[in-house]
């Protein structure tokens, strides 16, 4: 095998597939990237057996077709430290030589046949979604997934496709983010699956790098995503996603409208005087004023006020400020609606018609 590739494109591809390569594994081949030079393109393959990625570089000159299996981090580091426009990669048996102007590296690889088979996305997609739409939706949901173990399968994002809509839902059991987006065209079939957090951020990376529509398909146990250059195939999370519809408040009799940026700023101020034991900030809505109070035992207290539009009986409700900040950071609309029913019932943060965030309060007694 012998190819001449553009350094920049090669670095980008290796960075993407490199993020999949298994960190620690008893199988050294899983720490490798597989190179296939054929049909006028160089394909990079990586897998950790949960997720697999194929990345194609069309801007290559193939002098000799063939395959190679090379340690991913070494190859990526060599490419990253190269300044020339192109690099030549030549492979003889299991030895890989990377030649630039004034540099020549030889690294020892493995037999490409030892690499596990990597699935391709050859079936018809369920749906197509514009990459900027998907990237935005992932940004507004991924942060809410569970970081710790739960009896529900919530360390992933619920991915639901129906008609002309894609809906993503994420929760950690304390708050829930739900985002809707339009598909590029009507879905060929409805599908629902839980996509693990790590895979979801890979999908975001793949989507972020392109401008066209992405093709997606939910299989029995896998999700497949295809962009212009990359195919991502990953295992779905198994288990039950909680019945999230039940916790979205239907009728709220207390409604506030706030300036998103100002609210974020004020919440951050109030959060300055919270600590591990008293994480909550108390929100007191009364007339056109919102008063935020917080207290860190043996440290001090904060009282912050902010003008709001508010309808309904006054309410005092406490929230973990970090959870409010998480949501307010990803809302781009100038104003945000915040609605409540009672101090011990979830609050509902809404922005436009495509994003909502349900947040359970802290226990104020």
């Amino acid at each position: 095998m012998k190819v001449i590739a553009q350094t920049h494109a090669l670095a980008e591809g290796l960075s993407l597939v490199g993020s999949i390569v298994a960190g620690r594994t008893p199988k050294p081949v899983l720490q490798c990237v597989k190179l296939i030079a054929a049909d006028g393109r160089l394909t990079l393959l990586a897998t950790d057996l949960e997720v697999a990625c194929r990345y194609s570089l069309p801007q290559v000159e193939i002098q000799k077709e063939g395959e190679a299996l090379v340690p991913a981090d070494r190859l990526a580091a060599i490419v990253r430290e190269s300044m020339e426009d192109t690099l030549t990669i030549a492979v003889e048996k299991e030895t890989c030589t990377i030649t630039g102007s004034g540099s020549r590296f030889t690294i020892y690889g493995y037999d490409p046949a030892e690499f596990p088979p990597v699935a391709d996305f050859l079936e018809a997609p369920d749906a197509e979604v514009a990459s900027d739409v998907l990237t935005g939706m992932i940004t507004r949901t991924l942060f809410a997934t569970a970081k710790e173990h739960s009896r529900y399968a919530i360390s992933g994002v619920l991915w639901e496709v129906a008609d002309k809509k894609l809906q993503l839902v994420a929760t950690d059991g304390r708050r829930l983010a739900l985002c809707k987006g339009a598909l590029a065209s009507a879905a060929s079939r409805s599908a629902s699956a839980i996509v693990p957090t790590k895979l979801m951020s890979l999908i975001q990376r793949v989507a972020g790098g392109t401008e066209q529509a992405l093709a997606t398909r939910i299989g029995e146990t896998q999700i497949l995503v295809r962009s212009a250059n990359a195919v991502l195939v990953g295992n779905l999370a198994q288990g039950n996603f909680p019945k999230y519809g039940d916790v979205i408040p239907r009728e709220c009799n207390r409604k506030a409208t706030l300036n998103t940026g100002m609210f974020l700023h004020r919440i951050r101020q109030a959060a300055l005087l919270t600590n591990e034991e008293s994480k909550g900030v108390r929100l007191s809505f009364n007339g056109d004023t919102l008063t935020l109070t917080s207290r860190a035992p043996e440290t001090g207290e904060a009282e912050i006020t902010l003008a709001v539009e508010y309808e309904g009986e006054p309410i005092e409700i406490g929230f973990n400020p970090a959870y409010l900040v998480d949501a307010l950071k990803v809302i781009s609309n100038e104003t945000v609606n915040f609605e409540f029913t009672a101090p011990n019932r979830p609050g509902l943060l809404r922005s436009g018609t495509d994003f909502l965030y349900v947040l359970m309060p802290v226990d104020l007694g």
Partner: protein
Amino acid sequence: MSRRILHVDLDEFFAGVEKLDNPQLRGKPILVGGSPEGRGVVSTASYEARKFGCRSAMPMRQAMKLCPQAVVLPVRGARYKDMSDRVFAILDRFTPLIEPLSIDEAFLDVAGSERLHGPAVEIAKAIKHAVRGELGLTISIGVAPNKFLAKLGSEMHKPDGLTVIEESDLPAVLDALPIEKMWGVGPSSAWRLHELGFSTFRDLRTADLARLTEAAGSWAGELQKLAAGQDDRPVTPDSQAKSISAEQTFAQDVSDLDELRRVLLDEVEHVSRRLRRHGLSARTITLKLRYGDFTTLTRSATDAEATNLTEVLWSRAEKIFAQWAARSPGALRLLGFGTSNFRQRGDGAQLPLFEDPRQTRQRELDRTVDAIAQRFGPAAVRRGRTKE
């Protein structure tokens, strides 16, 4: 600042209530407890029955042999609970710092009440007066600078006693006491101490610590302090407690797993009810298992979520119990269940978004059961599984 601690202990409580409800029983030996058929044990022996050697926790059959003329009565839990509540209501007038030890026994810290109610001794007299005048029961009280001395005091002049132990009475008042009176010294450790020549508090107090350690292990230092009348444990009301627990010592060692599970479930119910009453939830549970030879195991588990639901605490306790039963079963002398690592309602902890619907139902059930128990006593309502 010197502390003022009261230990209050109702005299022959169950028998006292029976005498109150049926004056003809006065002056007669009474045994309140389980039926002599089967494994019934004596809960309370009246002072008249104690003259015959009857003691609480003794098998009923044995007690009836010692005192065949005794009147044997069943335990009327609801009635005793009701009287106990009234006694605690009286105690509550004098201080909020009440640490209940059982249905008929509590520690009170009255240092802060002396300005309002007079010296501790006067408070003790007022409590005795109110309990006798309003309820017709007698209570023995020890007044002392710490819990250990207060408890020794209340035992010194039973029934209807009032004993004050001052710092200046030490060590005279303690020195002659036999080591069996020492808090935490049971028959087995008493035997070990006697072997090495320790028989009185004085022996413990003046012992060489290294030698005492041979007999009592790491506990020796504590033992010596107590023997000198030193004890700085605070009076901890349930609401501020770091742990809430219940334990039962059996008259005869119990190895039957079903029987032990029944006892454990009763303890779980009792403890979780106390948690609910104080708006507490616990993350950690502990089982205490003491074998007949006094070897004691404690097994704990901590869950991410704090709870006070009987069913949830039971399932956590049952899991530990099953592990114990599988690995190291044996005849137990004592079985205890405790909870710790609390969170308090209104403490600002994050609430969960998805409550298991079963938990919502359990919460309702607990509320109903608590209300019934509150009204008719804990024996009036029991979990299906505890039914015999």
